[in-house]
């Protein structure tokens, strides 16, 4: 009985909240440079009776971005890097958004990476974090500091231990996405051959795009007509 009580007390003592909890979570989360695993996703959308379910594999590689490989209900690949976000089905690219067209591509890609990796140090700058940490697990609620972002995402809930195990994204519209992870693997061997290939050849023309952007910028400044802007 006393042992049980002590256990409860110790649990109570080790249950930390607030900033201290975030610090503790940061110690707990592994944050490996390469991380792959399986996911199951369930989207509950306003107006739809049934949730939309999908499953597949994902990889997050530091400084390279995220690969989101949906296998069911049909194959579809989403590749996010700081340069672009590319959606493809097999070899066919169905949509592509470059950082040149949408400057927040890098931010979005970094955000997804930080959420998957549980990188609270980075998440802190954009979110108000309300966290609770137990000795072996934690959960946290992230609310965007930015009102513009809050208009789209009202909160993100994360829970996990060494890795993030569950993400719940609550959209301002009432739509909700729940993702759970399993079979986490880390290190270079975590990548399957086709996944390694996807990261080695960064989705499409990312780097070329940037080259053109820089060149045309240089051309423009050489035109030197800025002086007439009034």
């Amino acid at each position, binding site marked *: 009985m006393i042992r049980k009580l002590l256990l409860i007390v110790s649990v109570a003592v080790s249950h930390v909240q607030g900033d201290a909890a975030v610090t503790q979570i940061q110690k707990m989360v592994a944050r490996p440079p390469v991380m792959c695993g399986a*996911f199951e*996703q369930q*989207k509950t*959308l*306003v*107006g*739809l*009776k*049934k949730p*939309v379910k*999908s499953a597949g594999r994902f990889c997050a590689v530091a400084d390279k971005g995220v690969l*989101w490989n*949906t296998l069911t*209900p049909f194959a*579809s690949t*989403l590749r996010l890097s700081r340069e672009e976000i590319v*959606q493809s*089905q097999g070899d066919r690219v*169905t*949509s592509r*958004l470059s*950082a040149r*067209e*949408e*400057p*927040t591509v*890098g*931010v*979005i890609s970094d955000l*997804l990476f930080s959420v998957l990796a549980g990188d609270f140090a980075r998440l802190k*700058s*954009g979110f108000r974090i309300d966290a609770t940490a137990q000795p072996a697990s934690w959960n946290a609620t992230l609310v965007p*500091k*930015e*009102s*513009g972002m809050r*208009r*789209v*995402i009202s909160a993100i809930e994360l829970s996990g231990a060494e890795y993030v195990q569950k*993400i719940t*994204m609550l*959209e301002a*519209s009432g*739509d909700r*996405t729940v*993702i759970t992870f399993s079979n986490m693997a880390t290190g270079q061997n975590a990548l399957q051959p086709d996944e390694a290939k996807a990261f080695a050849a960064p989705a499409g023309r990312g780097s070329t795009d940037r080259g053109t952007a*820089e060149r*045309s*910028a240089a*051309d*423009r*400044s050489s*035109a*030197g*007509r*800025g*002086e*007439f*802007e*009034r």
Partner: protein
Amino acid sequence: MLPIAVPPVAGNLSANSSENVKAVRTHRLFAWAWLLLVIAAVLYNGKVWVIDHRQLETDFLALLPNDESDPVARAAFERVAGATEQNVLVLVGSRDWSEARKAGDAYAKVLATQPGWFTPASLTALQSDSALAPWWTNRRGLVTESDRAALLRNTPDDWVKQALNDLLSPMGSGRVGAWQDDPFGFFRRWLQARAAETPVRPIDGVLRVDDADMHYVVLPMQLRSQAFALQSQREVMPLLNEARASAERAGSEITIKSAGMIFPAAAAAAQANNELSTIGWGSVIGIILITWVTFRSLRPIALILLSLGIGTIGAIAVTAFFYKSVHLLTLVFGASLIGVAEDYGTHYLCMSDRNVRGGVTVMRDLLPSLSLALLTTVVSFIGLGVSPFPGLQQMALFSAVGLVSSWITVVVWFPALDGKQIGRARVVGWFNWLRIRWLALSHGQPRIWLGVATLVVSAIGIARLHANDDIRLLQSLPDSLLREQTDVGRILDVPFTGQLYIVRAPSEQLLLEREEALRARLDSLQQQHVFDGYQAVTTWLPSQRSQRRDALLVRDKIYAANGALHQLRGALQEDDAWETRIRSEATSSTVIPLTSAAWLASPISEPLRPLWLGQQGAEWVSVVTLKGVENERLPELARAAEGFVGVQWADKVASISSVLGRYRVRMSWVLAASYLLVFLIFLPRYGRASWRILAPSVAASLVSLAVIGLLGQPLQLFHVLALFLVFGLGVDFAIFLSVQTHSAEGDVSFAVGLAAISTVLSLGLLALSATPVLHAFGLVMLVGITVSLLAAPLFCSSAPARTTGPV
């Protein structure tokens, strides 16, 4: 004392005849009347500058003609330019975003110490839900160009696949509203396309823009005062500099780039101010020195300064009376005029027989040549005044009034104030010795060689002359400033305002439709990389026709009975009711098209509002501006407007440049005509010798042109305008040199020499100016006056006047 001191003899005492007494009395009357006018001018200046606190104008472009004869085009440029004049854009950046934010905060904190000076652009307005509401409500009619093409091309199956694909994203929809409000993502993509028009994003509570690996905090603000007002520059610039320094201290490796009219305006004003004092004081000190060396007495110096002072006071008062804003460059140019106005006084004071014959008598004898000299100079300034350049007209008025005032002061006051003392230094002897050597050297054989050499050098130089009227050659910005301005423009992807399309139509809807037609052509040019992009009202405010057409297209392709929606329902395993509900919400017949009123009322329209001129008389007018245009592409863009009804390409840079060119040619003809006119005026007085009066100026003009050619500088309007002054002053010299009846030749030559030296000291000093317009003037004056001085004795020492009476 070196000067020969002669006991002062009052002029009127030596004048015995009653006619002389009468003349002196009349003279005195004029002197008092002039005093009243001078007092009036002083009082008026006091009122304008001290009581009304009027500001000096510093905008370089204000000097240029308002050539747009088309009032709509003028309004368009004024609108677009006026909207940006008070803008100040500051980028505070670093490779590390958090460092950039710290520095950005430090910058903003310094500016916040003076809340009344700037209006910061607010973030909250753009992010409020109500801002986007009109578009959200009207989303049915909003489809991007590429979606419109896809709607015509894609099968329903393609749309279903895309919709399902969107549902697999782990990121949520990233949209406004719920998934069911826009299941196929048309509005989301439309908004994305609008967002892509600017690279600036609100991130972490500030505006951010990225450039390569740099992250910048964007600080957009609006000056509360005018960028071209000297006073606001004096107050605001130190604050901006302090903010910059504070930001640089706040983070590591901080890069700051600023742009806005106030920066070049302040730089140009500082430069002009600087030159105003160096050139102004340079001439004054030079003239004091010359007068001192010549007369070795304080009174002549005081008299000369008096005539110059009154000239300046009169010039400023009259200019301020006729012009609401007096330009700083007018004063710089006017400062250089001191040397010209000084001629009249020096000329009188050089007459060594004043003590014998009396000041008034000497003045009466001098009057014809003094008047002629004034007349020719003023005529040449009027030549400047007939140009359509408001700045030059102001300078011409300023100069003409200044000269006339100095001249009157000399004529009516000097005989009474000169104290009759004559004193001249040894320098006169030296000067005459030099003059005689020069004349001897240039007699006979050497003179022919000199003439031939001058002609050959002139021919070579003039053969090398090329004209370039590009207005951009007239701007002088420090390189670093120019680079920052271009960088900011490039990073923020700001449109140019020197060239634009003007669209007009008899009704608002027709205007929007015409603009859309133009945009279709621009879109294809953009895809060919002719330019980077454009800003147009219809991106946010499509015509009602286009809204209806797109709404119909979506209804037919997506919401038809067996269309994409129906198939999507199957994939999502939803029921009939669901399909009916989504369809009725997306296609209900109560389409309220987006209106210009709704667009104007939303804070979102703020950046594009300058492009909307709305109703102008019987017409509706809007403007399309371009981004990332290279000069060589301009003709292509000009051609793009062809074939569209109501669309007009307007290139302000080119139009001002072409006006400059047109007037360069026109003023050259006016100059030639002025020579002819003056020749005709001289004919009765000088007869066949008239050409000798004009020859020194002609020679001086040719040599000046040759020097411009030899220096490789392009010939511009302002060189031609300076040739007007060379004409006026050169003729003056020749006139003075031909008056030799009542005074020794040496006196006159000496006076002319002094005048030339002081003119070179003042107008010639402008050649040192870093302001291209003033430099062009100064160079021509420097060369022209020197050559006039050297040439005048060669042509005129043997050109006695036929008559001596007044003309």
